[in-house]
């Protein structure tokens, strides 16, 4: 066991992969010499050198395009997009290139590339620097998307992503970088696509990730005192989706709440609700509720930002409503 922060876990995963496979390279804006804007990647440049760990110009489209070109010619690139809000800047390379390259060539290429980006609201970064990217990315077959919520997962999922022979987005949450826990020293690269039940309960299923998952766990503790036994599923992988774990839980609890740190319309939570309304419809005993940003944006002003991101009390209240419903 080594106690480490989510931030350190990301860096260690990168270092371990750079060490174990010389085809792994890492680049992005100010990730090398300066060790990253979020100070996530210090030391990699020093250990692995300027050839394999590179600072780039401010050119998100070229960053993703170069990762693709490198991936199909024998490297295993990890590209950083810094704030996940910059995902749209490179969106054509994501939607029309990396996701489709293997398919439209009839399987001629493997595309082993990883894109890291930091997402989520973290204390006043404003409208263009606080967004989560899952719902923009999950509608794109051909890429995988993982959203680690703990240091152990940050480590294992990033290593799993780098070893994966497909394009993977690893969305790190800015608000979790300082979270620390004991990470088992033998943590292996994790298989993508597996959710985990963070808290077992029999009354209601809550599906969430990252900061919302932690807040859901807090809400569950509060509700436990009120006699409501909440099961909290941490999806971890947004694509592929671990349908079995979700359905199994709904079959038990007959109630579902989804917590998203993003707008409502066409959010990833819609798919979970859709799954419940399809394969789980006969189990449902209450409305499926989603706690999210609604259809608004993140404002800078402290009380507005604090209000728009689902908080523990809003999550708890929704769970109570569903228990009553």
């Amino acid at each position: 066991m080594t106690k480490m922060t989510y931030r350190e876990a990301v860096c260690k995963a990168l270092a371990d992969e750079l060490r174990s496979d010389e085809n792994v390279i890492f680049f992005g804006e100010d990730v090398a010499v300066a060790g990253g804007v979020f100070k996530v990647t210090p030391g990699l440049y020093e250990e692995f050198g300027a050839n394999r760990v590179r600072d780039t110009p401010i050119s998100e489209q070229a960053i993703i395009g170069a990762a693709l070109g490198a991936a199909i010619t024998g490297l295993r690139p990890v590209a950083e997009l810094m704030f996940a809000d910059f995902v749209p800047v490179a969106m054509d390379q994501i939607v029309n290139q990396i996701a489709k390259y293997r398919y439209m060539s009839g399987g001629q290429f493997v595309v082993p590339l990883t894109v890291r980006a930091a997402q989520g609201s973290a204390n006043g970064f404003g409208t263009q620097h606080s967004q989560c990217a899952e719902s923009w990315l999950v509608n794109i077959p051909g890429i995988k998307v993982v959203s680690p919520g703990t240091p152990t997962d940050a480590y294992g999922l990033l290593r799993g992503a780098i070893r994966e022979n497909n394009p993977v987005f690893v969305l790190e949450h800015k608000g979790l970088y300082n979270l620390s826990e004991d990470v088992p020293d033998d943590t292996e690269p994790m298989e993508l696509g597996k959710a985990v039940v963070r808290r077992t309960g029999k009354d209601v299923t809550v599906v969430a990730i990252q900061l919302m998952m932690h807040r859901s766990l807090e809400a569950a503790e509060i509700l436990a005192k009120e006699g409501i036994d909440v099961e909290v599923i941490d999806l971890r992988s947004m694509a592929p989706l671990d349908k079995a774990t979700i359905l199994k839980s709904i079959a038990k609890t007959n109630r579902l709440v989804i917590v998203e740190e993003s707008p409502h319309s066409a959010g990833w939570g819609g798919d979970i609700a859709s799954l419940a309304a399809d394969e789980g419809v006969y189990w449902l005993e209450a409305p499926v509720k989603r706690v999210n940003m609604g259809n608004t944006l993140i404002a800078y002003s402290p009380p507005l930002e604090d209000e728009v991101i689902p908080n523990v009390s809003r999550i708890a209240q929704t769970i109570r409503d569903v228990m009553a419903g």
Partner: protein
Amino acid sequence: MAQALEVGTRQDILRRMLEIRIAEEQIQNLFLQNLIRGTTHLCIGQEGSAGVIWAMQKGDTVTCTYRGHGHALAMGMPVKSMMAEMMGKQSGACQGKGGSMHMTDATIGLLGANAIVGAQLPIAVGAALTYQVKKLPHVAISFFGEGASNIGTFHEALNMAAVWKLPIVFCCENNRYGEYSAQDKTTPVADIATRAIAYNMPGVVVDGQDVETVHAEALIALERARSGGGPTLLELKTYRYRGHSRTDTAPYRVAGELDEWLKRDPINLLKEKMIAANQLDETEFDEMKQAATQLVFDAIEWAKAEAYPPLEALYKDVYYEE
């Protein structure tokens, strides 16, 4: 060296540059006190850009970046309005919704400060398009950094403006660094102005520390734009004294570089010129500085006492509603 501006203008510019400098210093303090959340990007050292603003005419407009406090104040944004915005208050320039990176004030022609590198350039192109389509005598100006000259929107914006001969001035504030990367690490040309050749437009390297030179070159570019001569790429060679943002101490700086640039501080340069021309003495300068300090501190105290927006504001202005 550019021709001297008349004394009144010099005084106005000097006063405003002092206000910008002092406001920025206090913004840094407010950030450290957590009265400003998130991030701040200071333009201390780059106040010479005010020369561009002084070359503007009524109706001209600006888009700029997160490092836009100086432009906003130079254009006439009230310090109170800025400080309230910094703290997310209802009486802020953007009703508290924008924050440090998005100082915007349509009433003074400031069409937006953008936190996505390069995104403000095509938006200014659109403003210039309006002036051309409606045959208005206005010019759009877009400020950006040397690092932004490597992103796609820079290229598309300059190209479109050149093809349509739009009334626009692209104003690169080359402060030597993009975040923590020196220009030569990310950019294969020494002068961003060189890139104007790719659009067949004039590209001019300007001493960004001499506000009168800046003003003179901006005037030429604005006049060209206004008279149908199309866009210009101005490159102001300048320097930021502080780190990129937040608490960055700029350990990546080349040793001695800051000291060299401090010798050509834009405020000092103008001050010395005015003293040499008997338009100013140290006492008057101190008074000016004192007044600017007072203005800034009063604004901060006022802003601290202002109210946050009501929670209903969260759902307001996502869309325009009749």
